[in-house]
């Protein structure tokens, strides 16, 4: 679905010095995969997401989205339809005065027939469970609801892949839960390829694969269990592990014989019960 080959991205910082935000990134995301990207601020993960969507173009190397080269200007709209993007701040993404009009914005711009637009908007709102709010003004919604409307707006363009760039950073616990549930639903039930960039380690627990970025490079990748068991490595590069994994790690450090690969409350309960 997504492939990057020897991807480099160079930019000029404030002092006009040239720096690489990405260095030799080779990424291959399979159809239907759920990939979470973590890394500290400035590690290159947002730059990567903007490259995948064709907002930035590579300094060198190639990016293919569903076999389309993002540096081919003629394909850019096709690429953005294929790989939709949801950003951090829901207020910056909603444009219309009524929810369903907002969701219709994308398909309208694609020049679709009104009947087709209607169908897509209804389907998209249904998927994110926002149908009851379709005639409400977006500013009356909660943060989590607004973010779900933003997701519906992307869904209405029928992408194969959605890239989420810290979609929960501004939300309260209930809003975060709603959005995470929606993202997982899109992947599991709608079989969409998902790339989710986040600072919340517990949101990465259900991913197929976690990619860890540091200083413009992929430094670690694997299943959540493999990645989060590298507690020291993650801390060294300014990251964290879920609280459950942290507790297992600390108990292990003081001598208790338990696996440090627990990710969920249930897993750790089972591990600890073995010790009694």
């Amino acid at each position, binding site marked *: 679905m997504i492939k990057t080959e020897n991807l480099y991205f160079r930019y000029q910082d404030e002092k006009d010095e040239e720096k690489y935000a990405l260095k030799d990134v080779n990424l291959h995301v399979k159809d239907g995969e759920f990939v979470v990207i973590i890394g500290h*601020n400035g590690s290159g993960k947002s730059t990567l997401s903007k490259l995948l969507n064709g907002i930035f173009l590579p300094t060198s190397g190639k990016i293919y989205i569903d076999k389309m080269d993002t540096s081919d200007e003629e394909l850019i709209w096709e690429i953005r339809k294929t790989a939709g993007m949801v950003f951090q701040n829901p207020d910056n993404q909603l444009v219309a005065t009524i929810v369903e009009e907002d969701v219709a914005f994308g398909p309208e711009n694609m020049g679709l027939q009104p009947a087709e637009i209607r169908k897509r908007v209804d389907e998209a709102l249904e998927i994110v469970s926002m149908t009851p709010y379709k005639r409400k003004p977006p500013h009356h919604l909660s943060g989590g609801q607004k973010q779900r409307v933003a997701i519906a707006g992307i869904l209405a363009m029928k992408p194969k892949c959605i890239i989420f760039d810290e979609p929960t950073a501004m939300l309260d616990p209930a809003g975060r839960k709603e959005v995470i549930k929606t993202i997982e639903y899109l992947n599991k039930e709608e079989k969409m390829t998902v790339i989710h960039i986040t600072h919340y380690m517990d949101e990465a627990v259900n991913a197929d694969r976690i990619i860890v970025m540091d200083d413009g490079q992929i430094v670690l990748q694997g299943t959540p269990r493999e990645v989060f068991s590298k507690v020291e490595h993650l801390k060294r590069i300014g990251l964290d592990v879920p609280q459950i994994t942290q507790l297992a790690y600390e108990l292990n450090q003081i001598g*208790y014989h338990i696996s440090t690969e627990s990710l969920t*409350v249930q897993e750790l309960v089972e591990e600890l019960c073995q010790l*009694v």
Partner: protein
Amino acid sequence: MSISIKHLSHIYDYGTPNETVAIENINLEIEHGEFIGLIGHTGSGKSTLIQQLNGLLKPSKGTILVNGLNITEGLSNLDKTKKRSKSEQRKLAKERKRKLLEVRKKVGLVFQYPEYQLFEETIEKDIAFGPTNLGLGESEVKARVKEAMMLVGIDYDAYKDRSPFELSGGQKRRVAIAGVLAMRPEVLILDEPTAGLDPRGRDEILAQIKALHDKNKMTVIIVSHSMEDMAKIANRLIVMNKGKVVFDDSPHKVFKEIETLEKIGLAVPQISYLARALNEAGFHLSDEIITIEEAVEALKKQLPAIHPKAQNSKGGKASC
């Protein structure tokens, strides 16, 4: 510096069809040196409440006393009991202006994403903006900028002439907080100071706020969506829902209320969920465990005392 809030209500668009009650009959006593976490889902009234505390919003009803100074006198638009003459009104307005200046010096408010409010060419100028507007002399302003930068852990000499825009996200936020600290507030209110930061940036900011509280004896109020952070750092938690205070107690006591908190769109730290699940499985842990350190200590007492790695088998009877 103490803050006393009595019967405070705020209604947006009062008297119009869009009338919304944001907070209703809030009563709180905040003592000098407290470290308070203010939690509640989006729209629960947290931001309205903190904007009242430094006089950015005027209440519809009720009073706020900051160190005994009534900052809301004659302002509440719902209790117009007294008729005042024009000259009385003018006197009141003047008096209020003086009070508000006083209050804003004492109560510093750091908004959400404060780094978006950085605007000057250099970090020094940006931090100096507030104290300069207080009418302080050049040397005093400089001293305050230095002090504020030291407090947030940004080296004065190395950074003062740099543009705030070339900093990392976490650094920018610290510069923005320094801008408020340069006013030397006695109460520091921060609206989601860690939103959008990576784990290290988050821990750094929280450690610095904690140090301001511990060393500089500042009263701190933090609005946060992170239950884990609040468990680690706050001495008192105020929980809001639908414009009312629903809990006001220590984090240990508040986080026992898992069901109610979830019902109002909040959560408890993951560790508290674990402690509960362990108890259901047969452990006997306190129901007030909210941090990893507490969980480690409690588990040490309940797990077999023998050094477990010395055991060959995983041995012991399974009681769960």
